[in-house]
């Protein structure tokens, strides 16, 4: 039996093709995922991300505990109303999950992936020390409103909070009544994500829909995040790879040196010994679509494989991420596509920045 979000009926009303996504009945698309992709790049779209797991962290030791739990340092968040992206590692430096940590007044909120929910909760419970209280919030829904016109079209729904949301920097957030509104997203576009009570989600969705914000499904979400150079947990990273092998070195705070986060010793060792693999962006220089699992080679030697692949609607080309041997510096590689060797070029991420091909 699959779980349903509070927006299930809205998806059906909008003609969604529903799929089982890690145990959740979620919209893949509402007709055309390519059109939904373009709408988010050019105007405004919204995604139901209520399947994601929200965990509130309270207690007098919560901040110190998060500094040990996460590879990024929440002490960088000097005041409430700010958030940061981090990996959560095991002792070997393998990535258990990626998440966003929000600093509230006297407490914290984490948003983690739904596919890893049970493992994450068990890990956090096992690592708990001191005065730390973890509370999962299945009562909350979450909607991501994304695109260059997202804030303008959502203005009426935001109401009194509109100016505050407009004024937020990326990764800033405000709490307006029972709405928790953050300037975050997974598309590379402007916009916000709102966490709100589940029983208010349908009305929010309907108001946003009437304001010209188009429903967009998981299909468009995947191509948008890929173009934006953002990893997907379970594909581009998992327990078998460290952040240093996952294009996430920027999210690991090695300073201050005395902060003993879980995985630190393993990452330090890997840095000293040399990181064996890295995650890079690649673009197909022929007609076709890159797919996860396709092998990359250079000079006749297999050097790695694609962890994600898709057809980029913005660029009109096959794009992907590949984990390859770190000793390969060549820009021009080959991909084995159903028995044919086709040229791919390494591309600096992101592929697309604010609607434009980089």
């Amino acid at each position: 039996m699959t779980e349903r979000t509070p927006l299930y009926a809205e998806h059906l009303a909008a003609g969604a093709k529903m799929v089982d996504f890690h145990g959740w009945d979620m919209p893949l698309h509402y007709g055309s995922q390519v059109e939904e992709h373009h709408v988010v790049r050019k105007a405004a779209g919204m995604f139901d991300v209520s399947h994601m797991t929200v965990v509130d962290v309270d207690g007098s030791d919560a901040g110190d505990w998060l500094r040990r739990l996460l590879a990024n340092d929440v002490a960088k968040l000097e005041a409430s109303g700010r958030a940061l992206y981090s990996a959560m590692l095991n002792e070997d430096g393998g990535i258990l999950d990626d998440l966003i940590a929000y600093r509230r007044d006297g407490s914290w909120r984490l948003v983690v992936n739904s596919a890893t929910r049970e493992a994450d909760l068990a890990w956090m419970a096992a690592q708990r020390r001191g005065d730390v209280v973890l509370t999962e919030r299945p009562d909350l829904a979450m909607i991501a409103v994304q695109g260059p016109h997202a804030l303008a079209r959502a203005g009426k729904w935001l109401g009194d909070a509109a100016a505050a949301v407009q004024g937020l920097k990326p990764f800033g957030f405000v709490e307006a009544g029972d709405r928790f509104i953050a300037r975050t997203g997974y598309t590379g576009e402007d916009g916000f994500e709102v966490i709100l009570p589940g029983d208010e989600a349908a009305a929010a969705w309907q108001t946003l829909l009437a304001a010209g914000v188009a429903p967009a499904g998981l299909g468009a979400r995947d191509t948008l995040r890929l173009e934006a150079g953002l990893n997907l947990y379970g594909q581009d990273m998992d327990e078998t790879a460290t952040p240093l092998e996952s294009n996430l070195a920027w999210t690991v705070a090695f300073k201050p040196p005395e902060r003993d986060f879980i995985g630190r010793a393993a990452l330090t060792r890997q840095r000293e010994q040399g990181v064996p693999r890295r995650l890079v962006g690649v673009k197909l220089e022929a007609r076709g679509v890159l797919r996860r699992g396709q092998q990359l080679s250079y000079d006749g030697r297999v050097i790695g494989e694609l962890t994600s692949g898709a057809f980029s609607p913005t660029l009109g080309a096959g794009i992907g991420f590949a984990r390859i041997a770190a000793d390969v510096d060549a820009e021009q590689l080959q991909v084995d596509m159903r028995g044919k060797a086709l040229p791919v070029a390494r591309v600096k991420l992101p592929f697309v920045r604010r609607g434009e091909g980089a």
Partner: protein
Amino acid sequence: MSNIPAELRYAATHEWARLEEDGTVTVGITDHAQDALGDVVFVELPELGIDIQAGSEAGVVESVKAASDIYAPVSGTVIAINEALEEAPETINEDPYGSGWFFKLRPLDKAELDELLDAEGYGEVAESESH
């Protein structure tokens, strides 16, 4: 429920075939197939002039979801290909039985069409795959 026109013949691999008045056979993929694939983003058409056997590979459709081979429903010579699909592959989603056609064959033996599924038979195939 997908659209399965009664006047066409079908292969279990989701191609349709239409016998035209001039004796040629037009081939495309079904509405059920395009719906299952999702947005088509790329097609590889057969070469003009080649002879293909019924059931052999005649091209590729790549959608946002997967790459699928297209098989010739009947044997014959490829006498036309729908080059417009190269620039507008989404036509296959929009009009699978019309402007989304793939190629035309001069059939070797029109009787091969009788061996294909009729609309009812294909409907059962499509239905069984939808669950």
